[in-house]
């Protein structure tokens, strides 16, 4: 499916540009994006190196196990495939916590590390059930404090920059619950197909 989307976006874009007379813009966009992707990777590298180092300390010091212990009942239900005391749980929870507080910078490294741990558990190059659930939660966003949005609202002179926090939390809870339900639906559908 990703192959199809990837090809379609580019191919449709190029055909559209041919008729629309925007080939020049497409050319510029391609080379601008190459630079941009490298820049993003480099800045991500800094963040990754720092947080994975810090999280390793947290793991060795037993902090991740502590975090996992507190949320065990919830996590067990959401990720039934992951063994109780696996470090994967600690990284999943760190990722979620960072997301909740709007620390996107810290959330990505922990999320990637969580994916690595889940891959170790599944040992295949296909997406495991836990991975799909984890991504569903991440893509629906978990933000409780949308720091970036609040900053933009302040900049443009909002009388109440944090007025949208309640709305954001409500919408986030709805979308995260929906993500979990949709994820379960597809999981049970996969199981049924496999049985037939």
């Amino acid at each position: 499916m990703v192959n199809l989307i990837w090809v379609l976006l580019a191919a449709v874009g190029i055909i559209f540009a041919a008729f629309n007379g925007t080939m020049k813009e497409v050319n510029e966009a391609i080379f601008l994006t190459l630079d941009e992707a490298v820049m993003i990777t480099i800045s991500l590298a800094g963040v990754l190196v720092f947080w994975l180092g810090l999280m390793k300390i947290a793991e060795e010091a037993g902090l991740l196990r502590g975090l996992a212990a507190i949320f065990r009942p919830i996590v067990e239900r959401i990720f039934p495939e992951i063994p109780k005391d696996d470090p994967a749980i600690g990284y999943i929870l760190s990722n979620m916590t960072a997301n909740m507080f709007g620390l996107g910078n810290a959330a990505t490294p922990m999320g990637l590390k969580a994916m690595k741990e889940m891959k170790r558990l599944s040992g295949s190059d296909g997406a495991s059930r836990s991975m799909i659930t984890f991504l569903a939660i991440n893509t629906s966003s978990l933000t409780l404090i949308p720091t970036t949005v609040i900053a933009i609202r302040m900049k443009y002179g909002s009388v109440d920059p944090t007025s949208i926090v309640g709305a954001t939390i409500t919408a986030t809870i709805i979308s995260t619950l929906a993500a979990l339900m949709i994820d379960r639906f597809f999981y049970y559908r996969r199981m049924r197909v496999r049985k037939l």
Partner: protein
Amino acid sequence: MISIWFIPGIIFIVLAVATIKKVPAYEVFVEGSKEGIQIAVSLLPFLLGMMVSIAIFQASGAMGAILKVFEPLMTSIGVPEEILPLALIRPISGTAALSMTTELIRTFGPDSLIGQLASTMQGSTDTTLYIITVYFGAVGIKRMGDALKVGLLADLVGIIAAIVVVFILFS
């Protein structure tokens, strides 16, 4: 701003607990960090490939044309048409969505209905395509299963939820 305390606070707690538990903090830090370089490098092809495709689609004007098709549908149920491009771009491109949100807030004011809608949408869903590309790319997952379907459907629910909640709270 309380949020400026978070990150230094986390760093302090981790280092303090490590010292109490006699973990050789610096050595462990360096050991864990190394993995970061490896993840970042393996990420580049996935990220770059996806970004180029999206950029072509956007720059050609195809994205704009698709938005035009959906506009009457949205306005007919009372959603301001200005918000639609943001709703469609939010799952695809984080940077495009952020600049669109900023633009909407600047043009219509942060406290207008459009401003509130844009703010809530920006905060309550995330860039599905980016997350899936990066997370699966970093660990070399080739078969993604239902992940994309689940992510995009959840986005749809999230965007509808954002619109409904803002309408209830602010108008």
